[in-house]
């Protein structure tokens, strides 16, 4: 019985690598197992080298592993590049007609193309035969393979089913099983990417208008929401550029529809002026920022956590904003919903900070739509004498939307009086500035009853790991590999920074180790800004790849030496 499996599917862009990996993941998921898939691809459409790293286990799968027990190679490059990642008794599965292998692993050569020819299929269909082989190797049920293929290929399913069967039978005849994965008895959970979870979370908090301009790795939110717009009651718009995106969204918010936008660093950079305006005008908005390798155009299809301080300090001037950085798909769902609720409750911009690794990796995810709701906001009752920026004790002025009889809703990017007219007078400026900033206290109080950090590991460990965002997955996996005891503090809200939670963990330990994917230790620097605490043991990764749990475990060991 296998406790867990880790495999890699590789080939050229355009050869269906990603969907093959995804289908294998779905099949594993259908067996009640947990699955994590990381896709690695370049900024090109055909050629290059793509691969999917799939990990599955009966236990929670927080991350891919670089080490794999099976490589399924659609091309030679896959073997050349990844052989080093094979475990000692690992296997290499490949199309006998296109690839050669004579390394130390066990070679599983299969005539995939011939199988395709036999049924007069297209070359791309060989992936289904390969899937059949993989299913056999891990002792998976062919009926579940068929179910997934049918769901995905619909009218094109029959040929793919036939090929899966061929692959399965060929493997049965020629190979030994790698082993059978230990199954668990439970209904399968959805296998979601972070971006899908973000999209669905937003919907459950009342999203009605989604506006975006394509930019990797945020584009899949656009595709997903556009593809589901009818089912989810949404209006989706793709305007001329990112500035139009965010301004249109603010127009929609002003007019009474909950709206959201997304981009990556470069597009988010173009939205700065409008974010400051959202703060000043108190028109709510959720902005999703999916980080990629940077700076600038950077490494467009790879990951990074290097926009943290840019995002936390987004927009000129002082105004309240919130930044939430989910660490996994589940949090992506719940925290995006929370982001919308906070934005509308406090009439502020809220940024959901993700990255390629979270946004595009798949993970078996627990989602209960009943656990989220569109929370109440302070609405004006009746329109007469309405003042958009009424001075209130909590800083929150009742909302009203155009169309409300007798209410005249005047919103102003210039400093304004409670009615929304432009002003220059120092006393009023003070009042309005203070009114807006009073909302911070409300938000902080509100957040105290929400989950702003998560604690994992041993409560009384001497060593504390601090991290944020998608680095969480590798940290949790690394902890399984480490002999020493660790406590792990995962901060979900970079802003307002939950000092009330964080500070109580910092001085009780001997070592504090920060883990993040950037080259300057931005989270460690934020931690110091907010708590004064200086992290000396920083583990940084900035090659645009996420952490591998084993490598991370080694680095953690090393910093403690």
């Amino acid at each position, binding site marked *: 019985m296998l406790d867990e499996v880790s495999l890699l599917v590789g080939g050229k862009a355009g050869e269906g690598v990603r969907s093959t990996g995804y289908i294998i993941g*779905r099949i594993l*998921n259908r067996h009640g197992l947990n699955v994590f898939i990381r896709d690695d691809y370049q900024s090109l459409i055909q050629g290059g080298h793509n691969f999917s790293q799939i990990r599955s286990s009966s236990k929670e799968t927080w991350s891919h592993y670089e080490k794999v027990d099976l490589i399924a190679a659609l091309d030679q490059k896959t073997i050349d590049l990844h052989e080093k990642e094979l475990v000692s008794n690992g296997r290499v599965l490949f199309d006998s007609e296109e690839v050669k292998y004579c390394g130390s692993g066990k070679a599983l050569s299969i005539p995939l193309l011939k199988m395709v020819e036999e049924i007069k299929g297209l070359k791309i269909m060989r992936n289904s035969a390969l899937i059949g082989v993989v299913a056999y190797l891990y002792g998976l049920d062919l009926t579940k393979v068929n179910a997934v293929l049918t*769901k995905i290929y619909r009218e094109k399913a029959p040929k793919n089913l036939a090929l899966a069967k061929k692959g399965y039978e060929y493997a049965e005849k020629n190979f030994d099983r790698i082993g059978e994965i230990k199954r668990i008895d439970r209904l*399968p*959970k*959805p*296998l*979601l990417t972070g971006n*899908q979870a973000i999209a*669905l979370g937003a*919907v*459950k908090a*009342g999203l*009605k*208008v989604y*506006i975006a301009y394509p930019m990797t790795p945020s584009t899949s939110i656009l595709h997903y929401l556009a593809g589901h717009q009818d*089912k*989810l*009651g949404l*209006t989706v*718009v793709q*305007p*001329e*550029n990112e*500035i*139009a995106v965010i*301004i*249109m*969204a*603010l*127009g*929609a*918010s*002003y*007019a*009474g*529809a909950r*709206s959201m936008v997304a981009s990556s660093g470069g597009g988010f950079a173009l939205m700065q*002026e*409008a974010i400051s*305006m959202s703060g000043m005008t108190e028109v709510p908005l959720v902005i999703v920022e999916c980080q990629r390798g940077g700076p600038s155009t950077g490494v467009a299809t790879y990951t990074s956590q290097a926009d943290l301080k840019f995002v936390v300090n987004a927009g000129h001037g002082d105004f309240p904003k919130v930044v939430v950085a989910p660490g996994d798909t589940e949090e992506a769902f719940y925290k995006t919903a929370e982001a919308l609720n906070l934005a509308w409750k406090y009439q502020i911009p809220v940024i959901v900070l993700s990255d390629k690794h979270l946004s595009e990796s798949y993970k078996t995810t627990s*989602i209960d*739509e009943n656990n989220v709701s569109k929370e109440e906001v302070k609405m004006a009752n009746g*329109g007469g004498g309405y003042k958009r920026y009424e001075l209130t004790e909590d800083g929150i002025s009742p909302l009203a939307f*155009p*169309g*409300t*009889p*007798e*209410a*005249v*809703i*005047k*919103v*102003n*990017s*210039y400093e304004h009086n409670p009615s*929304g*007219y*432009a002003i220059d007078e120092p006393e009023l400026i003070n009042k309005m500035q203070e009114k807006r900033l009073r909302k911070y206290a409300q938000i902080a109080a509100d957040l105290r009853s929400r989950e702003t950090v998560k604690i994992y590991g041993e409560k009384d460990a001497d060593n504390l790991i601090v991290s944020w965002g998608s680095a969480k997955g590798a940290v949790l996996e690394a902890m399984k590999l480490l002999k020493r005891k660790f406590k792990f503090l995962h901060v979900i809200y970079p802003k307002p920074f939950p000092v009330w939670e964080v500070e109580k963990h910092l001085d009780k330990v001997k070592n504090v180790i920060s883990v993040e994917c950037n080259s300057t230790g931005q989270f460690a620097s934020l931690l110091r800004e907010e708590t004064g605490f200086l992290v000396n043991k920083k583990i940084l990764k900035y090659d645009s790849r996420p952490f591998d749990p084993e490598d991370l475990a080694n680095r953690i060991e090393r910093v403690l030496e």
Partner: protein
Amino acid sequence: MKLELDTPAEKTWCRGCGDFGILTAVKRAIQELVDSGETRHENIVIASGIGCHNKIVDYINVNSFDVLHGRVPPIISGMKIANPNLKVIGFAGDGDAYNEGISHLVYSAKRNIDITMIIHDNEVFALTTGQATATSSLGFSTKAMPKGNIEVPLNPIHLMLTSGATFVARGFSFDIKHLTSLIKEAVKHHGFSFIDVLQPCKTYHDTTQFLRERIYYLNEKGHDTKDFRAAWERADEKERIPIGIFYKIERKTFEDQLLKGKIPAYEKEIPSINHVIEEHI
């Protein structure tokens, strides 16, 4: 019913500024549009960019959004998408609309989204104390270009015709009666409507006299507003300056096609996502 359209805000335009004329015309047009049942007071939203022109939002007692420099078209487009029942009217300077925000203007026309854009075209960045804009003429000398502007001016009517605008007009800020009727027509037009208002800036570019001498009414002369080429050529005229509607056609609007009758701002129901989640199992 006489609407209360005045506001407590003190008017800070220079004496003789063309913006006063636009303000009067807009207020009259709003009154008449509400009177005629075309819309309701609470369903009107005006927006402005940043510049002298932007003060207009403070002077009219209707819903308003004073947005960023150049961003009037997307802010009112967003409103229209969220709630197509709103009548949204944008006011922008020439600097605002043709310099900083030209991309949005072009795209709004291209989309034929049902918004109205009124440009206070004084051929100068006035509020920042007088620099050349897109419409400033060759040689126009400013503190930022003491040797004179070396760019040929943009022709806003041509730009809008090219971009696919379905209602293209020109007004004159001191011909209030004419401007009022243009604004009414523009707002009533189902689709993207655009009025370039020739607006003398008393302080930095006083064209009052120049314009008074040259202006004539385009639509009194049998101009066919469906004729693209005629519109183009009329917009080329320089000796005499036509005001009125250059072009007006019907084309499907963006929001009609996008929303198909839906009103996002009114949709309060949260859909279940279970059927979508099913797809991921």
